[in-house]
Every structure is written in structure tokens, then in C-alpha cells.
């Protein structure tokens, strides 16, 4: 009896937290999607409508969603290309250095996201440090546009989320039994073959987890496009923010949010499936 009950008891705080702070708010948001914006903002509870969903499938919003996915996808790819070698190097370092290097990787989180983003404005602006250095070295004749464009947005996302990738891949590499790689080398495979055929496939779950972190956090981000994109780069996060606050159209904002939440759930589900399969094959 007790043995049967204890898992539920142990899970209760976590489940409660999930239900109260995730499921209920999501349902609240979803419930708004069937109403209309009142004439002066707020919600008109008298009309039940599918109008919001019809509006959300206007090509305009699909383009914004696609742009967001493209920017988030690019940030994810770059974060993986930077994060994997970094995680590999950390995993190969002596245990003492591993602690130091991991500490350095998460050190930026000690500063507020907003302040770190503002720091990039100081670095990237036309009269900023990077442009000053480039001109001093004679590499560019005048300031080059580094800020208030898509480049700056992708840079900001990569900078902020790469540590997540490093941590996810590092933990996958830690779990990897070194005897697999040794066996591969003993059987005559080169270092490159061992990496491509043994190490990478066996850490795919870590790569997927890191990628999902970056992608999901990036696609909903609105601060980075606002500050580093100079408001000129619109992502779906900005669109939702604008609907809730500027246009005061909560039902439509809720509809866009629900669609984004749905998309994220599909991505997370696919990642969970992929992870399961990867571990299944690993054993």
C-alpha cells in the first residue's frame, strides 16, 4: 500500500507546481481565444467566435512566425557549432579544470539578461568598441552596420543561450562510457571516424536537448529583437507582446500564444521521442 502511494506523494509538490503554474495559466490563455476584443480593449465575453484563429492564419502572421523560426534556427545551429567543441574540450579537461571551465561557462548568468544585452549595444554601435577597433586597424574605412539588424539579433541569441548547449552536451559526454571510443580505436577506426560514428551519435540526445533549449527560448524572445534589432526585426514574441499591450487585443494575443505553445509542445515531444530512441539504440 505504502510502496504504491509513495511515488505519488513524492511527485505531488512537482505536479502541483506544474498544474498551478503551467497547466492552469495555459488553459486560461487558451480560454481567451474564443472571445472578441472589446471596443475599448479588454474582452467582450458576449461573442464566441473562431475569428481569432482565422486571423492568425493570415499569411502576414505566418511570415512573422517563419522569420522567427528562421532566426531561432540559425541561432540554434551556430550555438551548436560553438557549444559542441567547447563541451568536448571541457569533458576532456582534467577534473579540476572541468569545474573551472563549467563555472566560466555559466558565469554570464550572474548578470541580468537586460544588462548583458545593453552591453552588446555599447560594443556594436557605429561609434562603439568593435567599429573603433576595426577602423584603427585599418580593416574598414568607416563604421560597418553591426547593430539594429538581424545579425545583431542572432548574435545576441547565440551569446545568451550557448551556455545551455554547452551544459547539455557536456552532461551527455560525461555519461558516455569511454570504453566505446577505446574499442573503436582498438578496432582500427581513426579519431575522426570514432567521433562521427561513436561519440556524436551517442551524445545526440544532449545535442537535441541543447538545440531545443536554444530554439524554444529564441523563438519566443522579444527583448533581443527589440534592443539589438532596434525594433526593426519583428519576431513572434514581439507580435504577441504588441497584441497584449499595445493593441490591447488579448483574445488575439492569446490565440497567437496558444499556437506558439502548441508548436513548442510538438518540438519538445519530438525531442523526447528522439532522446528515447537514441538511448534505446545506445544500449
Amino acid at each position, binding site marked *: 500500500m505504502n510502496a504504491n502511494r509513495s511515488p505519488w506523494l513524492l511527485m505531488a509538490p512537482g505536479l502541483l507546481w506544474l498544474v498551478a503554474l503551467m497547466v492552469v495559466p495555459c488553459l486560461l490563455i487558451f480560454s481567451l481565444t474564443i472571445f472578441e476584443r472589446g471596443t475599448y480593449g479588454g474582452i467582450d465575453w458576449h461573442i464566441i467566435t473562431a475569428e481569432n484563429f482565422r486571423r492568425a492564419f493570415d499569411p502576414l502572421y505566418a511570415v512573422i512566425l517563419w522569420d522567427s523560426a528562421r532566426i531561432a534556427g540559425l541561432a540554434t545551429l551556430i550555438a551548436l557549432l560553438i557549444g559542441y567543441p567547447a563541451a568536448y574540450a571541457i569533458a576532456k579537461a582534467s577534473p579540476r579544470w572541468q569545474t573551472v571551465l563549467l563555472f566560466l561557462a555559466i558565469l554570464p548568468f550572474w548578470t541580468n539578461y537586460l544588462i548583458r544585452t545593453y552591453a552588446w549595444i555599447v560594443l556594436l554601435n557605429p561609434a562603439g568598441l568593435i567599429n573603433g577597433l576595426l577602423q584603427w586597424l585599418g580593416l574598414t574605412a568607416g563604421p560597418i552596420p553591426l547593430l539594429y539588424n538581424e545579425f545583431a539579433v542572432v548574435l545576441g541569441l547565440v551569446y545568451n543561450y550557448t551556455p545551455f548547449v554547452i551544459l547539455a552536451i557536456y552532461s551527455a559526454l560525461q555519461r558516455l562510457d569511454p570504453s566505446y571510443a577505446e574499442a573503436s580505436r582498438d578496432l582500427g577506426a581513426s579519431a575522426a571516424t570514432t567521433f562521427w560514428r561513436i561519440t556524436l551519435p551517442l551524445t545526440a540526445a544532449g545535442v537535441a536537448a541543447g538545440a531545443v533549449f536554444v530554439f524554444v527560448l529564441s523563438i519566443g524572445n522579444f527583448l533581443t529583437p527589440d534592443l539589438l534589432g532596434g525594433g526593426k526585426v519583428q519576431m513572434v514574441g514581439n507580435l504577441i507582446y*504588441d497584441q497584449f499591450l499595445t493593441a490591447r487585443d488579448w483574445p488575439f494575443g492569446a490565440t497567437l500564444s496558444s499556437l506558439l505553445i502548441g508548436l513548442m509542445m510538438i518540438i519538445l515531444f519530438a525531442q523526447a521521442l528522439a532522446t528515447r530512441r537514441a538511448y534505446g539504440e545506445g544500449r
Partner: protein
Amino acid sequence: MNTKKILMAAFGLVLMTGSALADKVVISNWDGYMPKDIADKFKAATGLDLEVAVHATNEEIMGKVTASGGQGFDVLFVSSPFAEALHKLDLLAPIDPAKIPNLKNLYPEAAQLKHDPGNTFSVPYAWGTTGLCYRSDLVKGEPSSWNDLLNPADDLKGKTTMLATDRWLMAPAFLAAGVSVNTVDQAALDKARDQLVATKKTLLAYDDTTFYSKLVSGEASLVEAWDGWCNYGIAEKPEIKYVIPKEGSDLWVDTMVITKAAQNPDGAAKFIDFLLSAENGKWVVENIMYKTPNKAGMDSVDPAMLTQYPNMAIAPADLLKYEQLRDLGDGAKAFAKTVSEIMAAK
């Protein structure tokens, strides 16, 4: 039985907090929009405690108030279109002139504002125009038209900013086309969108908060600006100048309103009366560098200030020539979609 007891206890608690709140006034204002020691001064003048909450934008306080029906606040500071929307949502209490004798300090023009003639639900606190703020040493000639910003000369491309807040983002295109800043006519919206999509390619950024610093640093040469914010730039660099384009401006008005749900409506009226004193009106001009509809306050300002910041000297009668931004009502959806189209354009 038990439920009843709990309910009664809860009810009693509400009543108790209600009476505890009776000698306290709760307000929400933009940060830095009143003297820092306002609570002490107000307490000394009236014996009432003042609790100040801060909102960053109209939209933020609007969200809070519509979600709670105005519970928890006595006085709010909002721009006129938001005061208008709150009034239409039936969330505001009427202004009783008998309880606010300092209304006499206002210019007669302050009671002729289109969103609320006679100040029946809102009392203006500061007002001004939106125009072009520029570096006279970096811009050739004097800008005189919104088109100087919308279709900039080659040497200004990448050196201009526009305000990011939707209504002011659209206003220059409306003014340049000679239509109302409150239009929701689809043809006018489409025309403004085409202009602003073309303009977007020439902009350094959309910027609501740091445009004057960009002028000071030389990052930008010509920006769309609220007059008071241009003054912050002028204070740091005298080469910065402000001009209202020939096509005109909007007249923006920041107002004080009393919520219908106010726990302390009398205290709220006392607070508004207190802020309408000549001394507090003068503080607005000298510290926020905005014009105020408070004549007694404007009159007590050092005339040298009006010379240094010429836009401070715009007469109230001239301000009234410009159209105020109004709540768009049902037109807001079409307006919001147009803004999204501009924001999504590359």
C-alpha cells in the same frame, strides 16, 4: 457553518483594510514624473499618506487596471487616449471641481481638450507636441517637413530614428499625407503602410527611449521626438534643435484620473489639487522639461529656460491647433494589423 464563518472573517478583513486605507492615497505614475519627495510634501500639506506605484508605459497600467477593474488605485497618470478608453470602459470617477480648487491654475485652453471638454473625468498634467529633433551641425539646411524624415536625403539614410509606439509610429505618415492622426480608413492605412515600409529601410532604429542620446553621440542626426525629450538632448548639446514640421503635429496630453473603484476618492481629489499647485507645476517644467497646462506653474518658470528651450514657449492656443490622438475603438484592429505589416516588412 464553517464556510459561513470563513466568509464572514474574510469580509471583516476586507472591511478592516478598507478603513485602514481611508487616510492613504494610492497612485500609479511614470517613474520620475513627480518630485521624489512628493509623499513627504503631500503628508505635510494634507496629513494623508501617499503610496506611489510606478508604471513604465500607458499599456502596462492599462493592463493592470482593466484586469482588476481599477481596484487598488485611487489616482492614475495616463495619456489622454487611455484616459478616454478607461472612461468608456466605465472605470473612472467624475472629477468634482468643488473638491479641486486649484483647477483655477489651469489655462482656459486646458478645459477645451477634445478628449474631455470641461475636464469631466481627467485633469491634464503635462502636454506638448511631437516633431523633428535634429543636430543642426549634421543636417544640411533646416528640416521643415515630415517628408525630411520619411524620405530622407541620402546623407541622412541610416541616421534617423522614429518612435516605436504604434500611434506615433504611424502619425508622421498620416500628417504628411494630410489625413487625421486618428484615421482608420483602410485606404489611408494602406498608403501610410507603403510609405513607412519604404521609410523603414532608411531608419537606424525605432526608438522610444534613447533617441536623444543617439543625437548627442552623433549616431543619429534626425529623429522623431516628443518636444520634452528633445529638450534633454538640447540640455547636453546646444547644436540640437526642435521643429514642428509644416504639416503639423499631434497634441499629446498626459492626464490624472480618479478610478471609480478608488478606496479614497476625497484623498484622490486632494492629491490632484496638490499637484496643480504653482510650485508643483513649476517642478514639471524645470525637471521633466515638458510644458504644463498649469498656467500658475508656467508663469513662475525662469524666462531664460523658455529661451534655451524654445518649444517650451509654444502658446496653449497654438497647441490646441493640433489634433489629439484619440482612442480608436473598433478601428484598433485594422490599425494594429497595419502596424504588424510594417514591423514584419524587411
